[in-house]
């Protein structure tokens, strides 16, 4: 399964819903969480494509992927997630850091 952030918004916003539309929190709750659960169910990796937007706030990515790590566990997320970022390849390392910095909340 593939999720394209630009299908969510061309201009992703900041961290929380309170910060405005298209936040990392909103992306997580609407797109990322469901997509991840669906992919795991189908025994496949979730592919998240970051290309095609106007750019990212680090807070957006931290919230979306960090929440995913909190919900499913950092290592499990890393095993079942593939990120595409041809326009800004350094996001791959950054997101891995955001995921590993979070602890799973049971």
């Amino acid at each position, binding site marked *: 399964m593939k999720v394209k952030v630009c299908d969510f918004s061309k201009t992703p*916003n*900041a961290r929380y819903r309170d910060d405005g539309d298209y936040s990392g929190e909103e992306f997580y709750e609407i797109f990322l969480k469901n997509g991840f659960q669906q992919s795991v169910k189908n025994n496949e990796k979730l592919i998240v494509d970051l290309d095609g937007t*106007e750019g990212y706030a680090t*807070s957006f990515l931290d919230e979306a992927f960090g929440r995913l790590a909190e919900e499913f566990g950092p290592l499990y997320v890393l095993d079942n997630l593939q990120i595409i970022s041809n326009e*800004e390849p350094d996001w791959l390392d950054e997101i891995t850091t955001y995921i590993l910095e979070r602890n799973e909340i049971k």
Partner: protein
Amino acid sequence: MKLNKEQLLLFAVFTAGIIFGIILIPFFNIEVDSKVNLSDILSMLLTAVIGIYLSITIGGRQSSSRFEKEFLISEVKRITEYIDAANLFKNTVNIPAEDAAKGFKELNIRIFNFESILSDADYCQGLEATELRNAFKNLRVSILHLTSRKGLITPTSTERTDIVNKYSLFRKEVFKIITEINRYS
């Protein structure tokens, strides 16, 4: 006919040589031997061949190296030109979040292009832009990790100081990499 700088210099050196020769003639009694030794001719020819070879190879290398350095520096300047033109960090009181994200993406792409060209460089081998990238990442986080309200990032005075410091460090790294490029011969 208008003479260019190099032609004028050649003419000046030539004229100075003639004047210098005329002045020195009364002081020397030069005798020229009409017999020429074969080993002297061979030695002269060899010296000339080596001289021509060295001037061609070293001269060619220097001009290629100069071209590469100028190209790399122009790529670094594209990064700073963008920052100056976009006026991204002049106002650190209210930063439009969308513009900041867009600006950092463009900046990131320009730094990637520079890194890619640098990794293929022939004469500036071993030169890396790691510090420049780290300074960029620190600057990016100092702004894009902050909370935005109604599309505006409004840093506190401490955060503003941090942004200004990170921006200065980034500019310093840009300057450093230009200096390092210039050191390569």
